[in-house]
């Protein structure tokens, strides 16, 4: 407690007030969406880059084109930075119940073609903030609306121990006609998993991904395969009412935020969230 008060009163803190507004299409209940693609503060991310080639993300420059990460006060090493408090609210009656999951977006493979059954080999060697990729998860988010043909996803990756050739342990179904921002394998349909793709037996992280393949050409669309580290969650229960989370006293976890972390929220919709719904909140960080 003394160390915490010392850090706070010594100015080793940072606070950011964020806001996001959903796009012109309503969300579906039970699915997950990537809020970094939305307008607001910080600016929207559209996962640009050379197709299938790894692109890293960080706090200072985002994806290299859009500085989309929620600022958290810059690098502090050798000190350790943590999320201290979170608050969030939504204006929308259909934004509740909902869950916001703060993640550190390590980087992504852009331009995955959702209209081919060919193996799509991914290139580039990620340098991850999470040592050896421990704790890293991945999700496939739509960046241009997918076609209407049903399709499953398979993938091959290297796990936290450096073992390559690891594959999805179960059938993973994507969503036909998934909209931009939808984590396409999340939802309530059979074989949906979300927000993160299931890992092979015993795996606890990802160092890199080698390939993805669809079982059917969906008819159109592109996606980005994103590697991230989950950090903290906050739920939304009542329209207009702020939810607060104290990560020191209430949920004593003090999630770590690494130097350069590119922070953003994933949103799990508990209701069919109306188009143009506003979400906003605050994040407080401390280091010492």
């Amino acid at each position, binding site marked *: 407690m003394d160390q915490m008060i010392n850090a*706070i009163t010594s100015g080793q803190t940072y606070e950011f007030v964020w806001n996001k507004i959903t796009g012109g299409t309503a969300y579906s209940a039970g699915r997950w969406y990537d809020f970094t693609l939305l307008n607001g*503060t910080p*600016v929207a991310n559209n996962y640009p880059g050379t197709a299938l080639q790894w692109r890293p993300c960080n706090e200072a420059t985002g994806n290299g084109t859009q500085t989309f990460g929620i600022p958290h006060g810059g690098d502090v090493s050798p000190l350790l930075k943590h999320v201290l408090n979170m608050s969030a609210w939504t204006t929308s009656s259909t934004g509740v119940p909902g869950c916001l999951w703060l993640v550190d977006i390590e980087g992504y493979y852009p331009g995955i073609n959702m209209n081919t059954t060919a193996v799509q080999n991914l290139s580039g060697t990620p340098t991850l903030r999470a040592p050896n990729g421990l704790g890293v998860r991945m999700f496939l988010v739509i960046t241009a609306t997918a076609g209407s043909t049903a399709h499953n996803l398979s993938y091959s990756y290297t796990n936290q121990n450096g073992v390559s050739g690891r594959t999805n342990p179960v059938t993973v179904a994507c969503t036909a006609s998934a909209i931009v921002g939808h984590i396409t394998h999340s939802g309530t349909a059979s074989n949906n998993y979300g927000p993160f793709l299931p890992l092979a037996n015993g795996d606890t992280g990802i160092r890199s991904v080698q390939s993805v393949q669809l079982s059917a050409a969906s008819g159109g669309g592109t996606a980005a395969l994103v590697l991230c580290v989950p950090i903290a969650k906050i739920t939304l229960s*009542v329209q207009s009412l702020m939810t607060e989370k104290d990560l020191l*006293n209430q949920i004593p976890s003090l999630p770590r935020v690494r130097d350069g972390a590119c922070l953003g929220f994933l949103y799990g919709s508990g209701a069919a969230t109306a188009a143009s719904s506003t979400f906003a909140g605050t994040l407080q960080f401390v280091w010492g």
Partner: protein
Amino acid sequence: MAIRTLRDVYAAFEEGRWHTQYIYKTASVAYTAQWAPAHFQAGKPLGNPLLGDPLTFTPCILDRNNAIWFPDIPEGQERYLASVTLRHRQSGFNSYPSIVIYDLLGYYSQIDGDNDEVQEFDNTESLPRYTSGEGVQLVMINHLSPAAAHGLAIINYTNSDGIDQQVTVNVPMNGLNLVCSGVRTGAAAETGPIGIRLGPGARGVRKVNWIKFTTLPSGLFAICLIKVLATLVAGDNNVTVEREFYSKAGCYMPRIYDGAFLTWMSRIGGSTGRTVTWYGDFTFIWG
């Protein structure tokens, strides 16, 4: 003497280095699902309708009872907000209020919602606190004369890195004395954000350079520059919410700089507009 441990916090109380300031705010305008700044309401501290020379940055500095008062402290010491209690009375209970406590750094008054020309701001005065603008929010408020329509505006500001940026944001018709900070690029209702959407890489606002309405909302507006300090959620009507910052909320005691112009805004849900009266106190410690 600095407050660096829990023992220092207790010592501040034991040694009299504390002050509790009671507040009372008479009924607000009726609102629901919008952010309502309490400084518009009469009471103690005094109401502040954001008057000043039009389009000129007016810094806000505590002077007796114009904001939540706290005593001067010896040079070299630091002041913190140790705790807050707030209770509210809605004219008919809608829902629990969400509350944001902030330092009102200053404002640009009487922006003309019927003027489609560029309205340049006078920045002879600068931010009195948080002078780089890091973490400072740009908040649009409809004041003095009500808007008649949703508006759309281009706002040019200097961010906390000293870079001029420009955003196009809607200015929703949320009502008089209520926040109308837009995020979208089209004129439409929007009630959630406290500050407007900022440009790429912006971590705050140092000053605002000009505004140009491309869709006229009519009415008059103020742009406030604020630094959010804390959040809390109140309970049922007349139930007091108590927040000890040094032992709750991650021990995150907001630093209160000399001259800080403390106030809060609140948001209640529901379908019927309610007036809200506030009672409570703010306790400060220093060392």
